[in-house]
Structure formats: C-alpha cells, structure tokens
C-alpha cells in the first residue's frame, strides 16, 4: 500500500478518440488525449487504482495512479561523434586563415 500524502503521478483521459476534434490528422484522432499531473495522494492506494490527489495549486484531481515519487531521467544523451568532427573542422578553418595572413 502506498500511504496517503505520498507524492505521485496520475494519468487520466481527457478526451476519448470519439471526442477529439474532427479536423485532426488521423494518427492523432485515433488516440485519446491523455493528461499527467503530480500531487500528494489523498488516501492510501495501490498502483493502478483510481485515486484523488492534491496538486501544487491545491486542486483535487482524479486519475489512475501511475508512479510513486516520480523523478526525472532526461539527460545529455548519448555520445554524438559528429560534434567532435565539428571541433576539428573549425580548428582547421581558423588555422588555415591564420597561416594565410
């Protein structure tokens, strides 16, 4: 059981595919509009339960409990060798320019 007051992330469906704008590209129109919000659990619950949370602006929002104490994992990405080549290229141009002076 995840105790009340725990910081969590909930997911909900704002619009089902049938409720989406008719003008949307088909790839988007076939998917639901989903929403994710963070807040503290109002009552103890399990992952996947339908729960209510209190958000940073003190709103009460309902949804499916997806994540406990959510954290960020975005990073500086993997090594991109092309960026090293840029370095070499610039050094060569500026060096060439200097040797021409």
């Amino acid at each position, binding site marked *: 059981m995840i105790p009340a007051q725990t910081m969590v992330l909930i997911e909900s469906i704002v619009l089902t595919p049938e*409720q989406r704008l008719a003008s*949307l*590209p088909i790839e*988007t129109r076939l998917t639901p509009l*989903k929403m*994710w*919000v*963070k807040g503290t659990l109002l009552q103890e619950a399990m992952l996947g339960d339908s729960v209510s949370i209190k958000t940073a602006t003190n709103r009460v929002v309902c949804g499916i409990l997806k994540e406990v104490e959510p954290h960020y994992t*975005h990073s500086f990405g993997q090594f991109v060798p092309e960026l090293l080549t840029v370095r070499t290229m*610039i050094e060569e141009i500026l060096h060439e320019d200097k040797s021409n002076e």
Partner: protein
Amino acid sequence: MNKVEALYAKKNEIMKKSVGIDYDKYEYGTLSFDYDLLMEEAGYTLSQIDQIQSIYGANHTPLKELLHINQLVKACSKEGYGARIFLKDEALNDSGSFKARRASIACYHAKKLGFRGVIAATSGNYGAAVASQAAKHGLKCIIVQECYDSLGIGQPEIIEKSRACEAYGAEVIQLSVGPELFYVFLQLLEETGYFNASLYTPYGIKGIETLGYECVQDCLALTNKVPDAIVVTNAGGGNVTGTARGVLQATQKKVQIIGASVNLKGLHMAKDTDFNKKSFTTGHTGFGIPFAINPDRSDVPRSAARPLRYLDRYVTVTQGQVFFMTEVLCLLEGIERGPAGNTSLAAAFAIAKEMKTDQIVVVQESEYTGAGKHHQAQLSFARNQGIHIAFGNPQEEIPGKSILLPNNLKDFTVQEIFLPDVRAQYLKTILGNQESIQEVDIAYLMAETKLTRQEVISYLEQHGIQWEETYAKQTISGR
C-alpha cells in the same frame, strides 16, 4: 455539440475574465481592431517596464561581440564582407531566456489586478519564465504542456521545461499531442479563475520592447553605431513584434528586422507520429508561418503579436545549421547555450557573410541549456527516433528524416521566405469569404501587411471584394 465545442463556445467570456481586457471595444469596421489603442490602454511605459524588470531579474543582459565567430565569418566571406556579430545573452535573465521579460509584466499585472494565480499554455521557455516570475510575486502557477506522443515518449526539451517549472513551484499539466490542449487550458481558467498569462496579450509583448531598446542602446555604447540588422527568432510573432517596437523607441535610424525560423517544412504540428521527429519545439516554421498569416489564431481574441507589421525580411535555417552553430558558440566563445535560442545566431552567421565588414548584426537572444535541451541530448534523441544524422549540404536536409550538419561553411546560407507571398496569404485568410469591407478596413490591412493602399486595393479588385467608402466615413466620424 460535443464537450470540446461547448467549452470553445464560451471562449470569449472566459478570456475576458482571465485577462481583464474587453477586446470587443477595440473592434471596428468589418474586420479591423484598434491595435495601437489596445497597446496604449494596456498601460506601462518603456521606463515603467524597465523598472519592473530590473526588480524582477528580467532585463539588462550583456551584449557580447562574438570575436572568434566573427573571425570565422570573415574566413569564409568574400573580400570586404563579413559583418560583426553581437549576441544579446538573454540566457542570463532569471529562468534562462528572454521569455522572463514577457512573464515579468504578465505576472506583475496579474498581481496588481488581484488574481491569486496565473496559467500559461506553453511547452517552451515561457513556462519556466511564468513559473519563476509567479514565484517572485507569491502567485500560484499552472503550466499546461504538450509533452508526450501516444507511445508515452516525451520530447526531452519539453521534459526539461516541466522540471524547471516544478523547480519554481508550479503545477505542470502534461498532455499528449493535440490542439485540444486549449480545451484543458480553458477548463483550468474557468475552474481556478486565474490570470491568463498568455504570450499574446499586450503585457506579453510590451515586456520585450525593452529587449529591442537595449539591443540598440548597448550597441551604441559598445560601437557608437546602431545595428544595421537585428536577427530575431520567430515563432508566434511576439519576439519580432516586441523587439521591433523597442527599436523604434530607441532610434530613428533604420534597423533591419530579420525574422529567423528553423525549417520544419513537411512536419505536421498536430500529428502524433511527427511530434518526436522534430528537434526544435519552438522557433520553427510550424509556428512562424501560420502565426504570421493569422496572428489571431492565438489563445486571446486579438493577438498583440503582429509580425507582418514589423518584419523587413524573413529567413529559415535548418536544424543541422543551428546545432552546428550551438557547438561553435561553445568552442569559440566559451558560451554554452540551448540550441533553440541559437536559431537567430545560425541565421546571423549566414547573413553576416552577405554584409560589409563595417556593418553590425545583433542576435537578440540566447537561452539556457541543460539536460534534455542540450544539443547533444537533442541529436542523440533524434538519432534514436530514426533520424539520419550526417554532414552534408544543409539545403538537402529533410525535416523528420535527416539532420545535416554543414560540411562547408562557404555554403552556410539561409533560405528566404518571400514576404509578399506571406502577405498575400494573410489577406486571403483574413478576407476569407468577405464580399465587401469598409474604407477603414483598407488602412487596417495596410498597417497589418506594410502594403501600400494601391497594393491592398488591387488585391481586393482581383478577388472581387467591394469596399464601402461612404459608410466608412460615417463610421470614422462616429468613433
């Protein structure tokens, strides 16, 4: 009527409450509105804005000459060519971008009007800017972002902005792809009664006027000259509009205002499967062109961002060119900044090569970088999304399929967007199915497009649209 349409029908009523402006009072003629009066009545002189921004950490960033990049420009220019580039280092505002200027006035005004909180719908730096400025004023803050595709894959740059907003204490609403973000936004405005800190109110634009003003003043202080050109990244048009308005208040000399956007031609902004194929979430043609053609497609009834009134030239650069210049800025100037903020730098590099050595071009922004936003993070993410990354001719880059880092700086050029075509598209959109307009509308269309009266009239004649001169005169005297 479904629930989306039902809420959209209440849009004007919700907006009126949430921005404290009765837009109806500015409407006149068949399709016009009094833009100058809207801007004037919003209050706040340039010096008042300067004072507010000085208190709240949103102005007076340094203007830096990019000495080594300028050597590089000269190294690949013809004899006698290669202008000096200066960078207005806007990343040094609190929250890390020029958007702090816009948010500073929106939040100051919200506090003055007695609102308890602010809401903004933005996946860009503006979210962090509003969250930061709201924190300074003790206002609650909600930021609504388009963040994930239907597979749950988040664009790393937007995820980083979610983090930044939360760091400033804001509530972040993350959504999957789709323009119905506006539906959620309206729901939240109605539910909370918070201020709509839209990018497109007069406050959101006036906040940038100081940036244009400072670009001229700083350049004068450093070189005794006004810039020959200022390159401005263009998305929703606010950056161009505010900067140009500030320049006009700083000098009577002609400063060319050049808009620059990243070319994302072929990618659909509302298409779930295209969402993560772009490496730029703003400053691109997917916003730049639609908002130039129809400024009032924004989240307020009448946008204060009207780029066609101010643009002298509009160019595009490729994603590969911008990533390349972002790396060069690090290597040669020791300034590590986010790629999206370097769109105008990439354009300026190409433009400086066309200009004489005694000329000056100012790049009027930079933005912070970090996990997710960093150019390595974006290139790595793009590669994982199946985008081909290589060296090549930038003009052969296909958005959504390839990112080509320039292999020859002599071919580092911009592509022109022909402004007369954009103006014609604007007229086509605004005139729609109109059979007739009034005399007063002609002057409005001239101001909106920088076309002459004769050019507007010949468009009307070609499209069989009448104008009612007599009725219009009565309307003017009655106003």
